[in-house]
């Protein structure tokens, strides 16, 4: 008996030793290189140096970067490394390092030069771009007007292209000279510069078009050159030594770890495997208390109850207004979102062309008594009920349940129907199976894009296609107008209509907490939904 016990004890000890032997340094952890750093005083340079106040502000501290560093960022799944096949805005995190766009935009959402130095509408249907010269793709192909023509033609006509719709307004693209491109439009489209600032404007090497694996082997002109893509694991890049703005490239190697699970990504950051990642609001306090830095960046998108205005009960503006007044937005952002999001009643955030400073949250005050009165005015004093879809994500459900409780207090019964993420388009937008969806909207940089998608009679994100003649007029005029001051007036008018008519019920602007370890510099989000901008981000020299 004693011998048996000893043998068993020895087995456990041996196993323990085996486990212990496997410990030590984490070979998978990003190594911050200890090589002597080349110190570079960061200046306020951005793409082209034009209207870049916001970016300049973020880099005025002139930090010293370790130019030999490997920077490791954590992100969710990537759908494709071909900009015309990528399906979500989150893919942009993987695409920005390797692809420049014709037009870039800064952290405030303003357009700045990218591969095009200047652009202008010479008439409402003619758009001309002057290109940056001396730029080469990572495979050595020169970037010129012919490359732009090839890219735009591929993007707008390619059989599988997912940006076809955004470029459908283009009739013809021509190379006027090696450094000048002329785009002829079918109809006025003042939104084009910002469309070209997204995936539709990303420039791939024309030589790579014939590569059958181009979606896994991207070749652009960007600040980092693609090295490898291991499915479900990592996308790796190295510095583009010939980049046209070398100061933007702060690392020798960039690794984006693909980690789909939020908790796994958070743990990878906390254990030192990642330098930075985005995290859930609920993790922010704990991260800060354990020495991590968190930048909460309020973004273009918003979370709202999107309504089908052609279906009962939301075909009645009084019911929509009653819902608007029955919701305490501040309580939701404090109670559910840890006070990390900004409540709103209007569709566009501050800094955006459509933002109307006169429309304050306090104007649509939380007033259950008023909500009840509006319902009574609508002849629904006995109450009303409706179904509302929500995608099966804990944070979305929590917000929606808070709204549900508030609406119940004024006699509105909200039946929450939880659905899979992929179902919202067919169930809500196409088949119109419920009059409401409690959902985030990523937003678009140009308000005309949002109005066209969500509030016009042809908008693919407008279930029921409910609109008004004035909204259609605002859209049409803003597309033909290139004077941004005049467009601003139009969009602000739209925002007022949106609030007065309670076209949708916004809760708050989307905000994404970006967390990073101490010693990481320049972390910022773009004025967009969650893409991480690696430009000017790196590791502090020791």
């Amino acid at each position, binding site marked *: 008996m004693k011998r*048996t016990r000893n043998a*068993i004890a020895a087995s456990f000890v041996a196993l323990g030793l085996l486990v212990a032997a496997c410990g030590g340094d*984490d070979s*998978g952890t990003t190594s911050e290189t200890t090589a002597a750093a080349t110190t570079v005083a960061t200046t306020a340079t951005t793409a082209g140096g034009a209207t870049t106040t916001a970016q300049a502000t973020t880099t005025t501290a002139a930090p010293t970067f370790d130019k030999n560093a490997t920077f490791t960022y954590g992100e969710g799944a990537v759908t*494709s490394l071909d900009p015309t096949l990528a399906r979500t805005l989150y893919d942009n995190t993987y695409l920005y390092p390797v692809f420049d766009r014709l037009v870039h935009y800064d952290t405030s959402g303003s357009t700045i030069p990218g591969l095009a130095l200047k652009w202008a509408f010479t008439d409402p249907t003619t758009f001309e771009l002057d290109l940056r010269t001396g730029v080469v793709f990572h495979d050595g192909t020169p970037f010129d007007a012919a490359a732009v023509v090839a890219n735009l033609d591929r993007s707008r006509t390619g059989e599988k292209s997912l940006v076809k*719709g955004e470029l459908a307004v283009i009739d013809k693209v021509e190379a006027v000279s090696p450094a000048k491109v002329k785009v002829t439009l079918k109809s006025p489209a003042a939104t084009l510069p910002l469309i070209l600032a997204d995936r539709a404007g990303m420039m791939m090497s024309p030589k790579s078009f014939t590569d059958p694996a181009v979606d896994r082997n991207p070749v652009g002109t960007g600040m980092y050159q693609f090295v490898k893509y291991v*499915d479900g694991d990592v996308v790796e890049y190295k510095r583009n030594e010939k980049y046209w703005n070398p100061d933007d490239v702060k690392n020798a190697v960039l690794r984006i770890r693909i980690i789909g699970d939020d908790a796994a990504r958070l743990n990878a950051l906390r254990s030192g495997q990642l330098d930075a990642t985005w995290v859930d609001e609920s993790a922010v306090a704990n991260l800060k208390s354990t020495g991590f830095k968190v930048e909460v960046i309020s973004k273009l998108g918003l979370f709202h109850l999107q309504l089908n205005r052609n279906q009962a009960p939301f075909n009645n503006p009084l019911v929509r207004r009653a819902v608007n007044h029955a919701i305490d937005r501040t309580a939701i952002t404090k109670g559910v979102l840890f006070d990390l999001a900004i409540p709103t009643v209007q569709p566009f955030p501050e800094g955006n062309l459509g933002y109307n400073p006169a429309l304050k949250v306090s104007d649509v005050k939380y007033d259950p008594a008023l909500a009840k009165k509006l319902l009574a005015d609508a002849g629904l004093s006995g109450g009303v009920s409706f179904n509302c879809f929500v995608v099966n994500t804990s944070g979305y459900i929590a917000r929606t349940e808070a709204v549900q409780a508030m609406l119940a207090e004024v006699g509105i019964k909200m039946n929450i129907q939880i659905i899979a993420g*992929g179902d919202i388009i067919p169930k809500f937008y196409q088949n119109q199976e419920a009059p409401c969806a409690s959902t985030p909207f990523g937003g678009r940089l140009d308000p005309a894009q949002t109005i066209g998608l969500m509030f016009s009679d042809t908008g*693919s994100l407008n279930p029921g296609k409910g609109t008004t003649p004035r909204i259609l007029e605002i859209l049409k005029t803003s597309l033909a107008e290139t004077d941004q001051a005049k467009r601003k007036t139009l969009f602000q008018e739209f925002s007022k209509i949106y609030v007065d008519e309670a076209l949708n019920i916004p809760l708050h602007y989307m905000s994404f907490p970006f967390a990073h370890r101490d010693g990481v510099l320049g972390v910022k989000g773009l004025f967009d939904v969650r893409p991480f901008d690696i430009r000017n981000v790196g590791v502090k020299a020791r």
Partner: protein
Amino acid sequence: MWRTIARRLLGAIPLLFAMSIVVFSLVLIIPGDPAVTLAGENATPERVQEIRVALGLDRPVVEQYFDWLGGALQGDLGKSLTSSRRVSDVIADRLPISLTLAGSAILIGLLIGVPAGIVAALNRNRWPDRSATVGASLGVAMPNFWLGLVFVLVFAVRNPWFPASGFVRLSEDPAGWLHHLVLPALTLGTAASAEITRQLRGALSDVLLQDYVRTARAKGLRRWVVVGKHAAKNASIPVVTVLGLQFSLLLGGTVAVERVFGIPGLGTAIVDAVLGKDLPMIQGIVLLTTVAVVVINLLVDVAYGLLNPKVRA
């Protein structure tokens, strides 16, 4: 013996055929339309329809099934809807990772479960037995995703001894491979070890009460010879069954554990495929897993035959 194997193999053919129909039909009831998912955020209904036609999803289901089955029989599981890769290439990349994980978990299960089961059986109703039984109950009861998170918090975040996520291939870096494998394999192996402990304890306890064991002892054979040579062989039959079942369960368990540890195995691939409505990928991986389970069951049957001549008859 060979006749038994041949009979089992023949029996597997209708089973696999039926499974192929189930596998193909499963994806038809997954909510959502792959064309909508593929069309992206700004798609119009017309664009969605174009994609549906381009993918052949507008064709009759029976026609789609026989196309797929014909390809599968020739080893062609089709092309991913969301990338340029062939399903078989993705499986070839990912399967070794999941097999490594499941194999390591079985190894850990045996390393812990066999000694614990023997000790428990030899000390029935005493404290080693009770400890092993309580430990085994806990091991079976704990969900592996929870246990994985606890391991990560304790051994990666609080005490940075092991990486919290990721995988390194053996060919790239053997030490890194082992280092990355320890926590996920322990996570998966805990439940397996618990089940092996329980089964071995029960089987060995029964065998040790048999007359032939008493006779062997009466002959003056040493205790380890009686247990190791005479009792263990008969007690191992239920353990072999458990091993077969555990391997199948572990293949399924890798889905959660790979997610928790950010491991790019087959489990992660199928989660991504389901979220992206990548039908050929889902079908390919589920079909492969089904075949793997059938093969494992066949191996278990063969092992029965080797261990127990009565089964061969």
